[in-house]
């Protein structure tokens, strides 16, 4: 027993000693006079030849499938940037780590990675990015690809890829009134997951409904609820004229399937993460094709704008048999956002984590060739970079199952306030 204790102590002290040695390469920081990006100040993650960027994603947890799509597209994106000469005369090195949707693991991965990267391309997932955001803020490190929860607008270092869930839903209410014929006094059901996604969606819908003189019937669900019969019956009983959904594809399929079977012929509008193309093959397919809309920051896969087209083309090259969905243009767009910020830092002569954040915050009119509905403005921390969304409908013939109907910014989405 004593022997074992001693072994454990020995192993522990060795680990500690090793850990103490593994910090940043002292030569990495300092002033660089290498070729390419001449005379730029460099910091963590930057050498004469390479710029390291990190991606903390979920390759083993609940979002593994969608995450794999994003990893493939992101890797392809940076390979192409490197083939075109890189940034600041350096190649971009993407380091992908799996947090398995575990906030604790995400934090320790961030700790071990933060000295080797200039920025975080993505921290996938609400709870995981919520855990990493404040730490990245302390380190002054850029963090992108964290979804669309309004909470990101509290962080200077966070680059939200488009507008928030709340603005998506405020737009959904405006769209129901202005384009789909709902009247003052009508009721709208909001079916949502509690948390930084669904609750944000509800907040936007409630604000917009109050502005437009409608009433919200909130229905709280959890990811475990895949049979929404009772919830739909309650919505039918309340007499709603439209439904907004802040949940996941399994809930959308049940909601639409039950509504269809009850003959509830009313529009359903979902936030970005609610749709997946495989839903069109389920019993909910006909109802979705008839009544489903989605309000998204990012263009759907099938959009014919040059940005999403480039994303789709790249994806077909890197993952010919991959699943098609909104993850593809999103991953491409997140690559574009970070590239713009790193290029800005290079031009300003500060190729450091702080330099990337500063460059991102100086971006006031970023053109994305239709990846987002409007140019993006990141100069105000507490404001989303745009309030315009793509409105798309389910379409069996469109790759990825969604086809763009319009871009849209309603009056309540425009006036929604972030505290």
């Amino acid at each position, binding site marked *: 027993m004593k022997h074992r204790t001693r072994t454990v102590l020995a192993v522990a002290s060795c680990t500690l000693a090793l850990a103490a040695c593994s910090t940043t390469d002292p030569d990495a920081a300092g002033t660089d006079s290498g070729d390419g990006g001449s005379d730029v100040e460099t910091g963590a993650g930057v050498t004469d030849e390479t710029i390291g960027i990190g991606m903390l994603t979920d390759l*083993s*947890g*609940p*979002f*593994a*499938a*969608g995450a794999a799509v994003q990893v493939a597209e992101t890797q392809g994106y940076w390979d192409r940037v490197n083939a075109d000469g890189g940034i600041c005369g350096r190649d971009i090195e993407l380091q992908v780590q799996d947090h398995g949707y575990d906030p604790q693991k995400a934090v320790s991965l961030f700790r071990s990675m933060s000295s080797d990267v200039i920025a975080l391309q993505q921290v996938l997932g609400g709870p995981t990015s919520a855990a990493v955001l404040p730490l990245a803020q302390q380190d002054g490190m850029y963090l992108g690809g964290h979804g669309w929860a309004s909470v990101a607008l509290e962080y200077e270092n966070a680059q939200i890829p488009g507008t928030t869930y709340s603005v998506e839903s405020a737009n959904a209410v405006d769209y129901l009134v202005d384009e789909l014929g709902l009247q003052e006094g009508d009721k709208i059901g909001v079916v949502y997951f*509690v948390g930084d996604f669904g609750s944000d969606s509800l907040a936007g819908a409630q604000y917009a409904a109050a502005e437009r003189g409608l009433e919200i*019937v*909130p*229905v*709280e*669900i*959890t*990811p*475990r609820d*895949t*049979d*929404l*019969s*009772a*919830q*739909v*019956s*309650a919505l039918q*009983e*309340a007499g709603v004229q439209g439904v907004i959904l802040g949940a996941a*594809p*399994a809930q*959308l*399929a*049940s909601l639409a*399937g*039950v509504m*269809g*079977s*009850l003959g509830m012929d009313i529009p359903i509008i979902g936030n970005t993460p609610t749709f*997946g193309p*495989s*839903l069109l*093959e*389920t*019993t*909910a397919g006909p109802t979705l094709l008839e009544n489903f809309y989605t309000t998204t920051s990012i263009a759907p896969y099938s959009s014919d704008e040059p940005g999403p087209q480039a994303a789709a083309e790249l994806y077909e090259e890197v993952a010919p048999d991959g*699943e098609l*969905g909104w993850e593809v243009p999103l991953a491409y767009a997140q690559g574009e956002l970070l590239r713009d910020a790193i290029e800005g830092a290079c031009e300003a002569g500060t190729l450091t984590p702080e330099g990337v954040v500063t460059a991102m915050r100086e971006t006031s009119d970023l053109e994305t060739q239709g990846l987002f509905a409007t140019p993006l403005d990141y100069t105000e921390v507490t404001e989303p970079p745009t309030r315009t969304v793509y409105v798309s409908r389910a379409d069996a013939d469109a790759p990825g199952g969604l086809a763009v109907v319009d871009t849209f910014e309603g009056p309540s989405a425009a006036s929604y306030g972030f505290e």
Partner: protein
Amino acid sequence: MSYLLTQLANGLSYGLVLGLIAVGFVIVFTATGVLNFAHGSVLLAGAYLVAVLQPTVGFWAAAAVGIAGAALLGVLINAVLVRNLAEANPGTAAILMLGVDILLLTELTRRIGNRVIPMGAPWGADRVEFAGVSLPTSRALAALVAVVLFAALWFLFARTRTGVAMRAAAADGDTASLMGIRLSRTGAAGWALAGALAAIAGIFLASFPAPGVAPTVALSAFAAIPAWVLGGFDSVVGAIVGGLVVGVATALAVGYEAELHVLGSGFGEVVPYLVMILVLLVRPSGLFGSKEAVRV
């Protein structure tokens, strides 16, 4: 009134399906003394088999394979892991089952990905109407199948040698063993039965009004745990009644959430546990559980 009846019918049919799962928990517990926390992933494995096989071999053949597969999976878990632990602390076995659940669930999640795989059941999204109440055909059928299965279980346990042997083994393993009953067989039979019931429940839980097989289907087994506990850990009848109580209470709480707003939103989510706590306060061994011999 018809709204109330509709919600009641929803709750009853869902409760009967929960009962199928809860009975599986009871059978495994009485047959081998294991709290089977891997039940949810066995359920998902059965439903997954059906969903991936049905496009090629048709729904009925796929259902047969899925049910047999889940039964076999149960027998395998029992043969490889549980039997070797027979004399160990039941707590160890429960934790082991949690481990098995995580392993199975991770692999199934990887296979399913972000798809929702349709179950392809022939009754699709049809509904049946009676007395002004409209219920999805799949749910009506689920209720019917559950009732038939419960009757079959009663027959098995009351009238067949295997069933009597299983009950004897559950009541007192050592004595049963001395009487010539092979505990390894009754254990395997229990796990097979539980696996098959779970797969049947899984087929209904993943058919309309649910969209198809997604990893979340495995979580349904957790909804059956309060049913199992409030019925009494070791009572098949208790599990069925527990399922009905939980199903109806949940459906009513969700259906009347607007009226129950003082209790906050999302009340339906906690109702099963609330009911369980209330029942256990009054009857610590559950509704039908066998009482502890010694109580001080």
